[in-house]
């Protein structure tokens, strides 16, 4: 990963935000159209990986709001909590709870969607955790 090209760096600088936005788009619309937390997460991870290839893993880490291992923990917690919420209504674990009114842009929001967000975060976290560490592991 030592070889970096100027061209790639420039391209990534533009591509990465696009890819990230696309990934969020995939996540949000996943419930109704092709997409979802998995694909969204994978695309986002790909964006960061691309960045890591263009710049360096270290630079990519600096861009991340949370370290990958924390992302995993947060993602798992969100997924778990989205299921636990139903318990407070006296329903079985993971029973869907939906807001009455759809939100702008996002659409209908319910616990399954929150669950999908958890999935999204875990996927990003894991992919980055694996690939970044592997890329840094130069021996």
């Amino acid at each position, binding site marked *: 990963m030592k070889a970096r090209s100027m061209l790639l760096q420039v391209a990534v600088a533009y591509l990465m935000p696009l890819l990230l936005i696309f990934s969020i788009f995939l996540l949000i619309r996943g419930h109704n159209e092709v997409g979802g937390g998995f694909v969204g997460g994978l695309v986002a991870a790909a964006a960061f990986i691309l960045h890591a290839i263009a710049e360096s893993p270290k630079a990519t880490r600096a861009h991340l709001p949370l370290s990958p*291992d924390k992302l995993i923990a947060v993602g*798992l917690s969100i997924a778990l909590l989205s*299921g636990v919420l139903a*318990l407070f209504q006296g329903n*079985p*674990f993971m029973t869907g709870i939906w807001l009455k009114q759809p939100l702008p842009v996002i659409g209908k929001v319910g616990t399954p969607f929150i669950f999908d967000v958890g999935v999204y975060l875990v996927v990003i976290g894991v992919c980055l955790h694996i690939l970044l560490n592997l890329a840094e592991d130069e021996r």
Partner: protein
Amino acid sequence: MNAWSIAPIGLALAWGIMGLIFWQRIRLLRWLGVLGSTSFVALSIALLTMVQKEKFLILQVGAWRAPFGITIAIDLLGALMVTMTSVLAWFIALYSLTEIDESQVRYGFYPLFFLLLMGVFGAFTTGDLFNLYVWFEVMLMASFVLMALGGYRAQLEGATKYVLLNLIGSTFFLIAAGLTYSLTGTLNMADLAVQIREIDNPSLPLVLSALFLIAFGIKAAIFPLFFWLPASYHTPPVAVTALFSGLLTKVGVYAMVRVFTLIFPFNGTILQPILLVLAGFTMVTGVLGAAAQWDLRRLLSFHIISQIGYLIMGLGLFTPLALAGTIFFTLHVVIAKAALFLVSGMIQRLTGTFNLKSLGNLAQTQPGMALLFAFPALSLAGLPPFSGFFAKLILVRAGLEAQQGAIVAVSLVVSLLTLFSMSKIWQEAFWKPARREGKGILPVHMWGAVGGIVVVGVLLGLFANPIMTLSLQAAEQLLQPSMYIQMVLGGQP
């Protein structure tokens, strides 16, 4: 009440996440391990009493009626298994306080521990075939990492074979599950039980059973699918080996019991004699493998295989008594085996070796340890008044009742060989003059953990009746799946 049935999985995940959050706080994590497993013990005992009262705990996850969602169904067998897992985990956590070294804790021992338990709990409680696959994978993935955690050469080498062969097992499972769906259009176990019985061509379910037999056979390490076990079990820290020996193969056996009683009752088919023959070979090759070993942990690892043979024998006989035997035997062997592994760990700590040839004279220098070894060893060899005796008695009886004298004979000979093997350890490690004296003092919690688990094992023998009664009831439940089916499909969500 029913809502509680999700609790083991959820709680394990929650503790796992806690472990991830406190990633580098070594001391905190260690106590988290004990605290977490304490919560499992409390929970599982509560579950067991609930199941005893209500027969089944059924939860339709997401409130989707079966067979559309995923069902969690805990019957007596499931509850017993969960309880056993929790108890074992508690002692392992206690033992691990110093056994697992700092670097291993630093790189995730405790999250892995909890998530492994999550997978095991999931496997024991789920009522959905594909969901079972998922929990298998959770458990396997956690075990892969635990196996390699530490990064020593032998660990990596062992883990390589372990991982590859187990992935082949998962492949079989996945194919089988996929084909099952293809045949029936459902994945809910209770629904499957109904659908499979409606299929005209009996060979189609039989083919699937064969696939499941291979898939679970690999996980359960039956003959001739056990190679991964002796290749790897002696490489991780001994607490991990003890945990694995108690859980992984047993989950494979559990899956066989569940699938072959509920979904594909195989009695009367060609698979029944095959299973009995395999059971015999598993016992014999395992115990002979043990006889050839001089490394304490390898020796014990081979005995895991041998004991699996007994469990399969009970399943193969397929009578209520025999299944009860399998269940009781499982509980017995998990405790006895874990105790032996933990004792071997203590021996290694004192003397720096697992090699029987270098060990010696421990009966003099460590009388307490000799006692801790003797009880589970005698129990494993099936001598009274320990739990192994009752486990053996019930299987022998079931075998003779079913007029399967051959397998009974094999099982008895193997139990003699087991005794031989245990007395070999006794002679070499405890009696013969030592080449290398043990030194140092072991931490109190280690004695506590091993002493505790040995006491549990002894009590399981001396007061065998309650657990035996439960096992018999659980076996009854298994052989009358109609109630299970009705509860899952027709009962209140």
